[in-house]
């Protein structure tokens, strides 16, 4: 299987360990085989080990080591935030975060909604069963 996601300047990555866990950062330069210079609109540019990064499918068009302003403009132009939040990976993370922050009443409502959905699915299934058997 060939590789689809490359470490390159402008690759958006998700931080999967450490202080900046869960942040989307942009690879702005490569220090060496193991580390990248990484930047995001809300953090000081710093180096990060590739072991802490998970590459995403999103890339933006930036020159090597851009100024912060250029980076932010390029991220707006490529619409990184929306692309991420509409991707299946991004949506899953948002749902996970929502589920983790539910209170007991929300979990009760969730339980009722699940029961309701299961009921509707079961009704449709029984209808299909009746059609095939008849």
């Amino acid at each position, binding site marked *: 299987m060939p590789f689809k996601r490359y470490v*390159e300047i402008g690759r958006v990555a998700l931080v999967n360990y450490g202080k900046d*866990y869960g942040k989307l950062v942009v690879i702005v330069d490569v220090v060496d085989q193991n580390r990248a210079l990484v930047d995001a609109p809300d953090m000081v540019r*710093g180096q990060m080990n590739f072991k802490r990064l998970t*590459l995403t499918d999103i890339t933006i068009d930036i020159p*090597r080591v851009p100024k912060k302003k250029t980076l932010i403009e390029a991220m707006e132009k490529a619409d990184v935030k929306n692309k991420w939040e509409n991707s299946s990976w991004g949506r899953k993370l948002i749902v996970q975060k929502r589920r983790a922050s539910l209170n007991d009443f929300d979990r009760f409502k969730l339980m009722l909604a699940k029961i309701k959905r299961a009921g509707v699915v079961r009704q449709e299934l029984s209808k299909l069963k009746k059609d095939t058997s008849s």
Partner: protein
Amino acid sequence: MDTAIGSFKLPEWRAHTCRCIAVPVFSHSTCLRLQIFEKNPTKIKNYGIWLRYQSRTGYHNMYKEYRDTTLNGAVEQMYTEMASRHRVRFPCIQIIKTATIPAKLCKRDNTKQFHNSKIKFPLVVKKVRPPTRKLKTTYKATRPNLFM
């Protein structure tokens, strides 16, 4: 290597960019500890380090190159590499000179391969680990998926 010089406490972000070095003031006195603050810690530089080290059979000179954002980081890389490659420990290494080398003058292919403005390479293996040490367990229910 603590982040305090005497009673002066450094803010945490400073600690990430500076490191104490021990400089002997007189040959038999206690060391004066100086902090080296990196002028530009967000810029990647090629560091050339000239060193003299003592091996089991004698003294040798070496020139090594490292890519890093700070001098302290490059020197740390040097010490760990000397320890792993040549089994030379900290007391047996003397740094003669360090310098920031412009890309044209770098000698080692290992650093020159990163002098590419359109650098692009895949990450071959994904390191699967829990996001915090707290979530670490000895046994897992499934085998990890190592494809990036």
